[in-house]
């Protein structure tokens, strides 16, 4: 067992432990922090796999942007407490059985593809230069389409997050504790 095997093993252990804690922790803030730990370990996996660009993008986009968004919503809605009702025992057993069966099916389906890969010795896999060249030639149209997708998602998020006027009037007539107005 050499050093790289130990490194990959430790990183895999951290990933699985963090993922378990995301699911099992009662407090949502602890879940977010455990998910950030998992994303960091997956970024480390990308470094080990010689995919530097993906590693940095994973850190910036997932651990930086998306997780901050999650934390922000948690704090905004004041959900940082253990407020989840207890589920019946049957539900957890059924969920565990379903997930375990899916695990067995997926491993059985994908496992054989490990023998079928062939190794190319290309020098610059995963570097920014080669990925950028590919992104702006072969994948130019999907790249532009993803820009449009972002625009649509942004407009949708703003529209969904906006209070409509009718609800606003009802709310200010009945309750004033919502904090919708700045003077409160």
């Amino acid at each position: 067992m050499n050093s790289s095997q130990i490194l990959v093993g430790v990183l895999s252990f951290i990933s699985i432990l963090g993922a378990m804690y995301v699911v099992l922790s009662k407090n949502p803030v602890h879940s977010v922090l455990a998910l950030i730990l998992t994303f960091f370990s997956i970024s480390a996996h990308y470094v080990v796999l010689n995919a530097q660009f993906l590693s940095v993008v994973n850190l910036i986009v997932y651990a930086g942007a998306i997780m901050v968004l999650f934390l922000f919503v948690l704090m905004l809605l004041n959900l940082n407490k253990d407020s989840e009702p207890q589920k019946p025992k049957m539900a957890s057993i059924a969920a565990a059985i379903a997930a375990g069966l899916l695990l067995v099916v997926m491993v059985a389906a994908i496992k054989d593809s490990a023998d079928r890969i062939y190794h190319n010795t290309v020098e610059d896999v995963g570097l920014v230069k080669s990925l950028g060249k590919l992104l702006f030639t072969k994948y130019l149209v999907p790249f532009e389409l993803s820009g449009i997708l972002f625009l649509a998602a942004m407009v949708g998020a703003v529209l969904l997050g906006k209070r409509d006027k009718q609800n606003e009037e009802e709310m200010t007539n009945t309750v004033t504790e919502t904090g919708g107005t700045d003077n409160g």
Partner: protein
Amino acid sequence: MDNSIFNSVEISQYIYLSCVLFAIGLFGVLYRRNAIVLLMCIELMLNAVNLLFAAFSSYMGDNNGQLFVFFIMVVAAAEAAVGLAILVMMYRNTRSTDVSLMDNLKG
């Protein structure tokens, strides 16, 4: 290029890791009721797929797989933004993020 990792670590280890992470994410989606934890579990499943894409791409020396990961990240970011906006709207209506309360269409 340091090639030692590809010789000493089998790709099947990454296959197992990705499958386990995906199954944990699915367990969370089935088990938890808090909508924000559900969204986090979906992100976890997307990351498991990303890891498998990156592993195969690196082992085969093919850049296309890593660009696929890039596009999955784009879609995940858009999905998180819209999902959290829906969650905020749901919280405004029901004062809770419990997904078992959202059964209005049951009839």
